[in-house]
């Protein structure tokens, strides 16, 4: 019925401890984890609103491709294929430094590592950045 679920803030690399308030399977809010060694019961405004994006109607849950000027939901396969094609097209004309990669705080460190590895080792560019630096 009602649960308090400990977790870690996904916004930046600090890794603050948070506690999700869950009622009947629905996320109600976020609390700082008082005894967490990183944040000691404190949060920044983003952490306090961690639950907001989960239930946000604006949250993207499937990839979109602009078709005839409008965004349309497509499958991951199609989206990845489409992106790969476009990348290849741009890079073949302008070289690897013509593309760049922006990573997100909302994914794990491991995923972020993979992105920069992908940029540097596979694509061959240093154009890689993270939203916490924007």
């Amino acid at each position, binding site marked *: *019925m*009602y*649960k308090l679920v400990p977790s870690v803030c996904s916004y930046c690399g600090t890794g603050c401890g948070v506690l999700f308030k869950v009622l009947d399977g629905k996320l*109600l809010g976020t609390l700082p984890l008082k*005894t967490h060694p990183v944040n000691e019961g404190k949060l*920044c*405004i983003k952490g*306090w609103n961690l639950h907001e994006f989960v239930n946000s109607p604006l949250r993207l849950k499937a990839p979109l491709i602009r078709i005839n000027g409008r965004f349309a939901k497509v499958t991951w396969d199609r989206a990845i294929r489409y992106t790969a094609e476009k990348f290849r097209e741009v890079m073949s004309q302008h070289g690897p430094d013509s593309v760049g990669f922006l990573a997100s705080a909302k994914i794990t460190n491991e995923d972020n590592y993979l992105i920069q590895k992908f940029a540097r080792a596979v694509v061959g560019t240093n154009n890689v950045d993270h939203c916490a630096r924007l």
Partner: protein
Amino acid sequence: MHEKVLNLLETGKVDIFLGYKMMAGHPLPHAFGRHNPVEVQEMILGPARYPLEKLAVEILAARPDLKIGILARDCNRRALNVLTVHQQVAPGQVQVLEVSCCPSPLQRHADCSSLEAKEFGAGKKEIGIDNNLTPDRLEAMEPTERFSRWMYEFQKCLKCYGCRDICPVCFCRECSLEHEDLIGTGDLPPEVPIFHLVRAVHMAGRCIDCGLCEDACPVDIPLRLLYRKVNELVADLFDYKTGLSLEQPPFSLLFDKTAQPAAAPHGA
């Protein structure tokens, strides 16, 4: 203690009991239910403090059919009184199981209202305000110095709204602190000192001095000191003792409770 909680659950006096339990190595607030009586034996009293009454009121807002019990220290109790006179919860809707104060590691005394903040560094003591000061000790300073020190503290504000979000008696749906006409948006720190003074005035007759705001403040603004002064004024000028009784109308700076008939009937 465990017996009492079990009894409350089994007799149907409450559907959920909010207490604490060790999970993932942390003492966390936990909702104990009737379906798992064994778990009740794992209930602990602390050492962390969370606004259990606020959680209870939030649950009731979504599920008014439930009956909730909470583990209540003195501050929880006072907060519940404030929430009740402000019609946020009907009297008796939340059952309390009283326990003694106060297992916070910040706390050296058993009495919550003399809860003390941790030691601060020399820098803060020199140009800011030591959170351990009392209102009188701060008032002993020259006004200009006091002002500079407050401004130093307020300028650190990250506008995280943590003080508001953790506050057990902040229940408004539309918060004045987010009202564009009252507090300008998009700037950091927020409008100094208006942001904190607005909140301070809103705390008049509401703050029960639990100290959770200061606990939650990432930049250690001495919020309790500010609100404690506010409530001193409320007590001295208006003879209003915040949170000490259910028999008083909600406090407002606009009317004298003694001149008013008893509060209107309670709503839902």
